[in-house]
């Protein structure tokens, strides 16, 4: 493949996975919910986008629709699941992801089953060259990434974000202060799901073809790997983790195609990832980027007040 196209392809995938990683960060990093069914919302977003577009809905509406349906799915799922203990929550979300994939695989009339859906490209009838389409995709996905990043950075710095953080630390204390943790957890779940849905829509729009085999539980684990590597409860960590894992993915694929090795680099890559995650959890459980202390603006006031009172 042409080098620039390949580079742009890498960039698009980086952006999509960084968005997924940030969405998991809202759920796990900030609110402490172990969602092992991330791929379900990715799938939901991708298929909603594809089906809506085929029904003649404009693409920007389809993007919004995929976020909305994923959020609704997240909300429905959270109703029963969030009352469970965290290990049960993990198993339930994993199982729901599989149920959804089985549904997509079985209901051919709606989703094309194992034959998948071909999605019309947004940039198809603009008369652009291959390079230009790839570049437009990079702009689109990185634009969405930056928007999501700014939104989440804003969200987690508001009083609302601090409620989420306090739920992660101690939800009984939150309840004692008159907030309903279940409600907040469900909202965090819906926000995370909506963002994952947008990532799914971007994926479908970029790939122009989706089938159930693209949405194996492996996607969920890749996102977890990115988040644990980059660092939980830190937006930079979530993005950087996604970039690093994606670079390794590409590296092993290039090594497989162009180097004559006695072993399969793809296997070795996952073995190394497994070992790396275990070592990280043992020796650096907070990942590459540590969680930052909260910036509330009150501290500055306190310091100002202290210094002014001491000079008096």
């Amino acid at each position: 493949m042409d080098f620039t196209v390949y580079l742009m392809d890498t960039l698009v995938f980086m952006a999509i996975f960084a968005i997924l990683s940030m969405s998991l960060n809202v759920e796990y990093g900030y609110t402490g919910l172990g969602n092992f069914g991330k791929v379900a919302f990715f799938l939901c977003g991708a298929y909603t986008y594809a089906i809506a577009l085929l029904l003649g809905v404009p693409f920007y509406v389809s993007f919004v629709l995929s976020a909305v349906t994923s959020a609704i799915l997240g909300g429905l799922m959270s109703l029963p699941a969030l009352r469970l203990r965290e290990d049960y929550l993990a198993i339930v979300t994993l199982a729901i992801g599989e149920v959804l994939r089985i549904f997509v695989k079985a209901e051919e009339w709606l989703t094309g089953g194992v034959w998948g859906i071909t999605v019309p490209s947004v940039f198809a009838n603009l008369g652009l060259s291959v390079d230009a389409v790839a570049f437009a995709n990079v702009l689109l996905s990185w634009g969405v990434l930056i928007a999501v990043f700014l939104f989440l950075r804003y969200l987690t710095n508001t009083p609302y974000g601090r409620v989420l953080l306090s739920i992660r630390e101690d939800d009984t204390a939150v309840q004692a202060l008159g907030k309903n943790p279940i409600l907040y957890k469900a909202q965090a779940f819906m926000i995370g799901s909506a963002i994952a849905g947008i990532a799914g829509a971007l994926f479908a729009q970029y790939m122009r073809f989706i089938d159930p085999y693209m949405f194996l539980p492996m996607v969920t684990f890749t996102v977890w790997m990115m988040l644990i590597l980059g660092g939980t409860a830190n937006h930079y960590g979530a993005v950087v983790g996604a970039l690093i894992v994606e670079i390794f993915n590409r590296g092993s694929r290039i090594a497989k195609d162009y180097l004559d090795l006695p072993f399969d680099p793809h296997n070795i890559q996952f073995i190394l990832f497994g070992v790396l995650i275990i070592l990280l959890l043992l020796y650096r459980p907070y990942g590459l980027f540590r969680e930052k202390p909260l910036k509330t603006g009150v501290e500055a006031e306190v310091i100002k007040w202290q210094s002014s009172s001491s000079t008096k």
Partner: protein
Amino acid sequence: MIDIWQVLVNSLVTASIYLLAGIGLTLTIALSRFANFSYAELITLGAYCGLFFLATKDGNIFLAIILAFFVVGLVSVVSYSAVFKPLEERKTSLIHLMVASIALGFVLRYSIGEIWGWSVLFYQTVWTVHTIGSVRITSLWIMMILTAFIVALCLHYFLTRTKMGKAIRAIACNPALASITGINKQKVIFLVWFCGAGLAAVAGVFRAADTRLSPMMGWELILPIFATVILGGIGNFYGLIVAALIIGLVENFGVAMLLKLGLSTEYRMALVFLILIAVLIIRPKGLAR
């Protein structure tokens, strides 16, 4: 037309796999209190060990099963002392323990993929088919059902009559109190990780002999096994037996029903997952008490 007896036999076969693989899982969750996803790969590893020993030991399946039991048990104990024990000592959260178990699963799965390749393999052994009335049953199936039955009986005896078995139940019930009464917790945990994984390996060999081998086979089994374990109630051995039978029946009658209703048999697993979700929501304790 559905042949009830054939479906019942098929259910028993499925149930014996889930029972054998579930024993270790339910006991380790009861003792260590986290869901160990790398169990899936221990099942796979058992199946591939079976393949290896069948090829080297002139196709004697009993010898292959016993050797697979010990190899996988050893791998499990090593993984516990190298990964999970240090993590537990560092007071790692439940979710991080689960992520670590998934990461360990990657290491095992892709190592298997590297050694034996990703294409589907089969055991070379041919099983004689017996026909009783309209029911078709292979000698392998008889062996599977008998093994599950004998293991269940032995385990019943072990858990209720021996000191070690009582120690396991004591730790599962109240770890602090068990330590005070002088039970060596580490020894018990090592034994459970060893024997539990060994039984999972046996289930893997049976599954591979019955169907096929692939590095993903354990992963395809792990969710129904979790469903069985949770339906039976974590750490509850008798609940597990009943749950294995229920899940086996649901899966096999489900397939028959789906065929009759003209729906895709893909939903077979979905049925099991729906039971899992329903149990967790309505009665997270499972069948216990």
